[in-house]
């Protein structure tokens, strides 16, 4: 069991990467500026800060996947391309140790970055408004960490599945499009595609709940729903663009389901990535 040794070396190396420090600084600046400039409309200080963190959540929904993918896509594919993997596996590390160690290290790296963004935003918000709605801040922070972890898991899994840098880049960009972008642009959204197949091609009756359920399979949607779990009652956002008329939201579209979606996206890619790495010729 030497995964901690793999992780420690990887984390040490990452902590010396100038580009990672640069990115962290820029992100910290971004959250500072957003927190400074944010002004709620006719809201008290407490409500303003809550609103600020919900807005940050909307930004993070798009941003954190990029941070996680960029920080992690090379972690194993890069070692395979450069030959670092032969040093790793020439020592008493199993492939399991390498995979787990790399995952742990990248989780730590990205979690540090996310923490930094929250610390800067919180510090600025408290300075400006004098209040700290701790529950909401910690809640959004926790959900953001889980959301980022999902994309780190996806990136590490992709990185373990391919043997070269170029393919790791392609896979990461593809993952971002499939899991985030396709849920944002109205014209080509996943829900729109499903609706088209369901109604126009198969001739079924319109079923909004079904389209929403398909949308819910994305960690992007799950993140926005999960934020509803941690904001004060009454502040929840309606994540789905269309809702079924005069009907209660079915249980499978409830905010809690987001945790299940996260769990599936954490475990599934890791399992597939590990199996592919375990069975591969590494040279």
């Amino acid at each position, binding site marked *: 069991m030497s995964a901690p040794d793999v992780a420690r070396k990887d984390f040490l190396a990452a902590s010396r990467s100038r580009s990672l420090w640069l990115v962290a600084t820029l992100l910290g600046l971004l959250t500072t500026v957003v927190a400074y400039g944010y002004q709620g409309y006719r809201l008290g200080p407490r409500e303003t800060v809550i609103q600020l963190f919900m807005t940050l959540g909307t930004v993070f929904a798009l941003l954190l996947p990029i941070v996680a993918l960029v920080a992690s896509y090379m972690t194993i594919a890069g070692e395979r391309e450069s030959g670092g993997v032969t040093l790793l*596996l*020439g020592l008493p590390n199993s492939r399991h140790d390498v995979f787990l160690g790399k995952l742990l290290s990248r989780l730590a790296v990205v979690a540090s970055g996310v923490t930094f963004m929250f610390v800067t935003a919180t510090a600025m918000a408290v300075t400006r408004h004098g209040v700290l709605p701790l529950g909401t801040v910690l809640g959004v922070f926790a959900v953001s960490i889980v959301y980022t972890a999902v994309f780190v898991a996806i990136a590490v899994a992709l990185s373990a599945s391919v043997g070269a840098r170029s393919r790791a880049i392609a896979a990461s960009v593809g993952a971002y499009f499939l899991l985030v972008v396709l849920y944002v642009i109205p014209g080509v959204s996943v829900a729109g595609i499903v609706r088209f197949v369901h109604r126009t091609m198969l001739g079924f009756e319109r079923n909004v709940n079904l389209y929403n359920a398909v949308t819910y399979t994305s960690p992007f949607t799950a993140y926005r729903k999960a934020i509803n779990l941690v904001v004060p009652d009454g502040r929840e956002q309606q994540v789905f663009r269309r809702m079924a008329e005069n009907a209660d939201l079915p249980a499978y579209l409830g905010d809690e389901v987001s945790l299940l979606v996260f769990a599936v996206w954490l475990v599934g890619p890791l399992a597939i990535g590990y199996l592919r790495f375990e069975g591969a010729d590494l040279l």
Partner: protein
Amino acid sequence: MVAIRTNGLTKRFGDVVAVEELDLTIEKGEVFGFLGPNGAGKSTTINLLLDFIRPTDGSVEVLGIDAQQDPAAIRRRVGVLPEGYGFDDPLTGREYLEWAIRTKRADDDPDELLGLVGLTDDAGRLAGEYSKGMQQRLAFAIALVGDPDLLILDEPSTGLDPNGIQQLRSVVRERAESGTTVFFSSHILSEVEAVCDRVGVMNAGELAAVDSIDGLRDSAGGAATLRLTCATPPTGLGVESLSGVERTTVEDHTVVVDCASPAVKVDVVTHVAERATVEDIVSETVSLEALFNDLTAGGRDDGETPTAEAVER
């Protein structure tokens, strides 16, 4: 006791057969040289031993442990200098070495190992900025961590200067004397000759020969070459009709005669001396290099005339 055993080991990459039906046994305590031209399947075999790649067929056992079953257990007792490693993390040479020592749960003194491979003065520099030869020294130091039972070295002298090669050899000899089994690959014959008890010669994925250096020399038979320089061009002497003569060629005033055994030489000299004035006689025993070329047919190119280039590259 057996250090390495392969049974019918086969590795194909698509249509290319890199290693075919390899049966190789290396006893504990041996220094085994694994020879062959580029592309003969040496590194593929080593990568199979270390479970970097998986066999298409057959099995590999290292120190009695199946390479696929428990590679980490093997790596605890083996020191590896792999081919194509990369020091791409921004860590110093010393940090890499300390990481290796910690990972191996060993208690080596990093300074001692750095001194052994001649890196003391550069230990504080980033390993990624080392020259190829310095990286090779560092990789060798990492292989030595934890005094392993078996050293697997893939082309260890790559990039080393003569001084470095000398150091490497003396460390390998030292470790071998204290009981370490050494398995190393090379395409340089002299290197293998200098330190190995036994050699295996790979060619085109198959084991062409396994023997001691002396055994290989013997198996090349008495094959010997005579060069007789005469006062007049020695043509039409009928040397080739003598029994035991394999080939004759005439170059200017010199006739070159390949003999099947040393005993034939006397007949040749007598025969020629009766018909021409012999000015000089040069006798050469078969060189290992020629033998190596014979065994590998000049490498993958399969050329008609094996050249020394295949050996030197």
